[in-house]
């Protein structure tokens, strides 16, 4: 046995406080960017932009998108895409239009049916994904398209107005601190989802399933049941978003809700870079929605052309994530 040079210096203990600061920076980078936007537009348009009415309108009118985003976060956490969310939303709103406004049904059974439609769509998604083992992207794309067809059919491609004023009141007319109630519903849902994902075993099971199906199964998690539930919840919440949509507009049209699909995914992914970076999370999604809409609203108020909105939206999405990646030394974020 030959002994070699044995002198070596002890390793330095790693310093932790800097890391923590950095992590907090990462968590709140997007919030900072949002505040910055508010400051900029506030300086440019002190009365109109900084008015409470402007903020209350922003908060109220985005509640639908927030709720939709919260819905799709659930299957995203458990590792599935739900591209049928916007179709579910539109179907739910249209059922309210058809049953309540056109056929004159009372509100309670109408809402029950609208929400049930979301559960059914979620269950159909779950059935095809889980029984046939098909990728969720293709199933939800197909089911969403099918639902779009159903919507056109039941609505005869028409906008239906005259949704019960009491729904409208409870969504957008009645206010708290001047903000339509819809905002608070969205906030409550976000808090609920946040709580479930962060502080319950059920929520973490969802995450487990999303990060490793086989491992979860080995550990006794009923993976298929968890995934099925997450599709169904996503459908239910999307249908709830549809209820708010109908309440917000007092009407239902067969198409405009579909435009919310990509914004919802953008908000979900952008939200996953903040608050709990690397995980889809409720308040991250909320902040993303309001960050993006603040920019768009400010630009519109400044009278910017429509195309500037796209430039801002696309640019902000990429730049915001790029900055938060710089903060975390460009480590890839793995969602699965």
């Amino acid at each position: 046995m030959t002994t070699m040079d044995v002198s070596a210096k002890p390793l330095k203990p790693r310093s932790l406080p800097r890391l923590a600061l950095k992590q907090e920076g990462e968590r709140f980078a997007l919030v900072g960017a949002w505040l910055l936007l508010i400051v900029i537009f506030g300086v440019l348009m002190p009365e109109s932009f900084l008015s409470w009415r402007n903020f209350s309108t922003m908060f109220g009118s985005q509640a639908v998108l927030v709720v939709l985003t919260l819905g799709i976060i659930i299957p995203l956490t458990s590792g599935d895409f739900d591209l049928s969310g916007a179709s579910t939303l539109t179907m739910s709103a249209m059922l309210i239009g058809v049953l309540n406004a056109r056929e004159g049904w009372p509100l309670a059974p109408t809402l029950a049916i609208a929400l049930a439609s979301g559960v059914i769509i979620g269950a159909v998604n779950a059935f095809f994904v889980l029984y046939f083992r098909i990728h969720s992207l293709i199933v939800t794309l197909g089911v969403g398209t099918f639902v779009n067809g159903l919507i056109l059919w039941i609505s005869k491609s028409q906008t239906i107005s005259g949704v019960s004023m009491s729904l409208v009141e409870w969504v957008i007319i009645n206010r708290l601190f001047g903000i339509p109630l819809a905002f608070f519903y969205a906030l409550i849902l976000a808090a609920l989802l946040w709580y479930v994902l962060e502080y319950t075993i059920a929520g973490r099971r969802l995450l487990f399933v999303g990060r490793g199906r086989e491992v979860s199964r080995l550990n006794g998690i009923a993976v298929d049941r968890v995934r099925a539930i997450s599709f169904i919840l996503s459908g239910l919440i999307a249908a709830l978003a549809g209820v708010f949509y109908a309440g917000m507009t007092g009407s239902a049209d067969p198409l405009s809700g579909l435009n919310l699909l990509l914004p919802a995914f953008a908000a979900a992914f952008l939200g996953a870079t903040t608050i709990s970076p690397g995980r889809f999370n409720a308040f991250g999604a909320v902040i993303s929605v309001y960050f993006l809409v603040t920019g768009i609203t400010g630009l519109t108020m400044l009278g910017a052309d429509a195309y500037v909105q796209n430039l801002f939206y696309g640019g902000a999405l990429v730049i915001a994530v790029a900055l938060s990646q710089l903060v975390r030394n460009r480590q890839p974020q793995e969602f699965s």
Partner: protein
Amino acid sequence: QGKAGPMEDAKAIVAAHEAMPVFTPPGEAFDAKACMAGKKVLSIPISMTIPFSVELQKGMAAAAKEVGFTYTTWDNQLKVDQWIQGVSQAISQKYDVLDVAGGLNPEVLGPQLAEARAAGLKISTTHLYDVTQEQFKGVDYTTKVDFTEAGRLLAAWAYVKTGGKPNVLIIGSSDVLPSTPFVQSIQSELKTLCPECKQKHLDVPVSEWATKIQPGVQSALLADSSINFILPIYDSMSQFVVPALRITGSEGAVKIASFNGTPFVLDMVREGHVQMDIGESLGWAGYAAVDNIMRMMCGLPSASKLNVPLLIFDERNIKTAGIPANFNDGYGDAHLEGFRKLWKLK
């Protein structure tokens, strides 16, 4: 119908829209400057990504500038939340008039318009309803468009140009509010002119024009090779009809006639891909819309319909629309003089 027979009737309808438009005042003259002094109007178009909206807004803004009141266009991209934001802006910035323009159905903003009204704003719609349609109860004044007449004209044109033997494919879009009476007008006029002629209706929602019109037209042509005329009710649809004709080898044999006078389609008329396009000068329409808004503010009765001409553009007069075409050329400028006089600007 006259006794002279369908061909003569049809020709008469066509002829009525071939002459250079003249200005007919929509109501009594009034002192616009006086009653609009200090007033503010905010207009929300359906989407500023649609050329039609952009040009209509330009016309309205130009008219407002002449009269001298504040006119704001709420730029947006076909998003409900943006429309709502616009209503809110109108309320918080104390506008006097909220205008819902060009294809945006005010019913979608029911609760918000009610709020605006409660805040003292007057609500108008511009360029949405057909003359046969009832306006939404949430709006005060509305300037209806004579889509019914445009429909009759398209039917008559197809009848005349096919020598009384039209087999027509109508392309509609039921999600756009005036489409239903518009399509019905074409259908009933065709029935009247030629009860035994075949006709077919292809209904494609706006958001699916790009993906469904072309295959829809192709299939229709292949299923029935005697189709000889296609009437897309809004001319922007033509972009997807032309390739369908090319690909089925029907270009030339099957003609297209449409409505709106969108510049690129006028260019297609000049290039021979579209036979006829009914133009409605959007500059003129802008003035007419502002006229009605001012009537609302000055306590005058509403104009019964948007005072715009429906002018036929075909190979004979297409060059007057400009090269490349635009929204305003070819109609003369009788309206400028007419409106100024009507508003007592001079």
